[in-house]
């Protein structure tokens, strides 16, 4: 179940993989500042405590300083971690556009390891949602393009 879910209204990104490690080990990598820095980005002020605010510094764009403002919404050890992920500026389109999203990590013990599911939710599609509604016929092509693009973007 890898991939990008495309929906009308708001869209979310889902990545879902099984790792051959215990949930406790994975939890540690998700919630220890030094370890987070080794696979995601180095956070400033992170603690796995509800209400805790922290930031990530990324590349600025336009009037946006590149800081991702986060806040822990939920932290259930070895099971679930959710944080708000807010960034961007109205003046930007594409990279650096305003985001008011939520990142949720869910850990499930499975045979031989842990299923780790990331949902990054709340990407609001442009106002004219009808463009998405009526494009179901074109979606296979669109999704193909997304795949091709995804390969080129980074």
């Amino acid at each position, binding site marked *: 179940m890898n991939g990008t879910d495309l929906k009308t209204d708001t869209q979310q990104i889902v990545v879902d993989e099984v790792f051959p490690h215990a949930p406790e*080990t994975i939890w540690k990598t998700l919630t220890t500042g030094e370890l987070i820095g*080794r696979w*995601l980005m180095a956070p400033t002020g992170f603690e796995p405590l509800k209400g805790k605010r922290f930031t990530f510094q990324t590349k600025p764009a336009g009037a946006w300083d590149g800081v991702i403002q986060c806040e822990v919404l939920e932290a259930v050890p070895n099971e679930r971690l959710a944080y708000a992920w807010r960034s961007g500026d109205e003046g930007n389109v594409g990279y650096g556009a305003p985001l008011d999203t939520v990142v949720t990590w869910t850990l499930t013990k499975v045979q031989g390891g842990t299923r780790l599911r990331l949902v990054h939710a709340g990407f609001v599609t442009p106002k*004219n949602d009808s463009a998405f509604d009526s494009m179901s016929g*074109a979606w296979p092509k669109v999704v193909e393009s*997304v795949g091709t*693009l*995804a390969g080129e973007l980074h």
Partner: protein
Amino acid sequence: MANMKSMPQVAPLDIVMRSLADPTRRAVFERIARADETTVAELTAGSGVTQSAISQHLRSLKEAGLVVDRAQGRNVYYRVEQKGLAPLVDWIGHYGVFWRKRFANLRNLLKDIDP
């Protein structure tokens, strides 16, 4: 007229959205997407819309960078520009790629700390 009539350019998001906001134009776009390559005459046939209306829609889609055309003999063939929808998807695609890369990093890190 040259064979490659238009160099595709990535259009701003609002131009793409405006072009696709029109239902008839969107239908034209979908038909082109399904056909791989098609002509004005083929698009007009059975569409219930005049050829000049179709031509106008094609112009808008071209301006939005959603379709490209090529002339061959007396015909002009239209096809979907694969990168045309990029403004619509790239900010989400950006994060899709971002997270998949981070998963790969995480997998490597876990291998290191918990072999």
